[in-house]
């Protein structure tokens, strides 16, 4: 082989020049395999998590019927009189998430429209990094911000508001999610080709008309993706609600009351010293499974909406 390399390749017979290069093929195969392993590691981790959740939940559902799990209005797995109704936790999760989205979706979308269609290059260069800095703030900080700053402020408006409530952390979670939504939505809007904007301007449209009537509909699929990301963040958020919403499972959609979310319950129980294999321990996994199914449902809904609005341009 070595001598062949030194030889002028053009002097070789054609059949030898066209022959398969075994060494090159082998290297390609190895690289391909390593790339596949890297891709699989994420898939494998996900599958492992799903497996553990389902496996441990099975053990849980041997003690608790699924009907009771879904219909019982109390969640008190660690009490003497144990109830295993997941609905109070689901209600807490949904309420805080909806408040967060009510804050984040309008502000995030408007911010994205401003940054993409109105802001000068200079403004964007200053505002974007600041928004992205917000992503880097640890969620514990947001939790105490909700508990010690936002809730007391809200108490001035609503005097009866308890110190632990869902409104404050919901709003703070919304603020936390704004940069996720605005950043992804802005990318989607900036990906709309300039020719489409020019078409609109050439019809005598103003900047605002172009942004609302042409760019936003053209970017719908990306904007919906931004919302899905926001929902997943809100549903899965732990620290803010664990710190500021109180940790009492409470079947209510009233934002003025305190409640626990699924994540808050998980972190609360996981920090205690529950014996491995006890029903309380297994309840974490059942709650986790519900959380995963919720996120999955939102993702599927989002995916379907995206498909429906998908515009090829």
């Amino acid at each position, binding site marked *: 082989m070595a001598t062949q390399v030194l030889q002028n390749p053009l002097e070789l017979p054609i059949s030898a020049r066209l022959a398969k290069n075994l060494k090159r093929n082998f290297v390609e195969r190895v690289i391909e395999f390593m790339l596949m392993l890297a891709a699989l590691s994420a898939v494998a981790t996900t599958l492992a998590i799903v497996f553990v959740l389902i496996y441990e939940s099975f053990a849980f559902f041997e003690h608790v019927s699924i009907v009771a799990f879904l219909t019982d209005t109390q969640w008190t797995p660690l009490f003497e009189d144990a109830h295993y109704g997941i609905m109070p936790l689901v209600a807490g999760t949904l309420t805080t998430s909806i408040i967060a989205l009510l804050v984040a979706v309008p502000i995030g979308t408007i911010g994205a429209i401003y940054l993409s269609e109105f802001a*000068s290059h200079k403004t964007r260069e200053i505002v974007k990094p600041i928004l992205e800095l917000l992503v880097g703030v640890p969620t514990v900080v947001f939790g105490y911000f909700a508990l010690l700053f936002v809730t007391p402020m809200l108490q001035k408006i609503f005097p009866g508001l308890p110190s632990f409530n869902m409104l404050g952390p919901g709003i703070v979670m919304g603020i936390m999610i704004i940069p996720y939504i605005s950043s992804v939505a802005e990318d989607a809007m900036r990906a709309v*080709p300039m*020719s*489409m*904007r*020019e*078409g*609109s*301007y*050439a*019809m*005598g*449209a*103003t900047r605002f*008309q172009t942004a609302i*009537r*042409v760019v936003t*509909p*053209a970017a*719908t699929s990306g904007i919906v993706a931004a919302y899905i990301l926001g929902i997943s963040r809100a549903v899965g958020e732990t620290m803010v609600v664990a710190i500021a919403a109180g940790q009492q499972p409470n079947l209510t959609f009233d934002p003025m009351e305190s409640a626990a979310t699924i994540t808050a319950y998980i972190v609360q129980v996981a920090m205690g010293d529950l014996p491995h294999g006890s029903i309380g321990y297994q309840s974490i996994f059942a709650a986790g499974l519900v959380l995963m199914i919720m996120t999955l449902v939102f993702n599927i809904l989002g995916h379907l909406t995206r498909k429906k609005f998908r*515009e*090829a*341009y």
Partner: protein
Amino acid sequence: MVTATTPIKAESRDLNFYYSNGTRALKGISMPLYENKITALIGPSGCGKSTFLRCFNRMHDLYPGNKYDGQIVMHPDNTNVLAHGVDPIEVRMRISMVFQKPNPFPKSIYENVAYGLRVRGEKNKRNIDDKVEEALKGAALWEEAKNRLHDLAFNLSGGQQQRLCIARALATDPEIMLFDEPTSALDPIATANIEELMSELRNKLTILVVTHNMQQAARVSDYTAYMYLGELIEYGDTDMIFTRPTRKETEDYITGKFG
């Protein structure tokens, strides 16, 4: 031949244009657009013909730092559309544009055509219905589109999309229509349709068309301008430019010795 009786719809007077990086893309261009005639702009890539066309509806205003110097005067009211006091939006309502690549909006066929009316604040559904039908007929798309007005515009073929863009531009009754290489993304049959359409539209409005295709200029236009490196080299009757050009550069370009 240029006859004294043909009225001038618009004319550029000593027009210079500078891009934001300082490049002088147009150098003292003066030429008329005759009413209800088609004027073609030809010349090699980068000669400034698209830049010149886009001055007419102030498209350069969309990008900061661009600078016009000179006049584009519209008749009969003698307005200089480049003047500081003139709102580019008002200019674009009188001078519409069709682009190189069909650029329909992500909306239904109907809403694409209605767009110009809607941004002007038109609310009356019957008026819009009538205008949409008229514009689609004017763009020879009505027969193909009348049963699918609420389909997404992207479902049309490339040639149909370009006719839709023409219908969109027609719906607001513009006085001048600018075509920026309208057929360069289309196949020969779709190109022939668009050319035929342009010839018909000439009865209603004044047309300025940029084209890379010299045969196209010869086929559709009444007047032709040859541009090179931002300068107007020669302007005249299309027959004359293609048969007896007075300038050597024009002849070289037309006969394919150059460009």
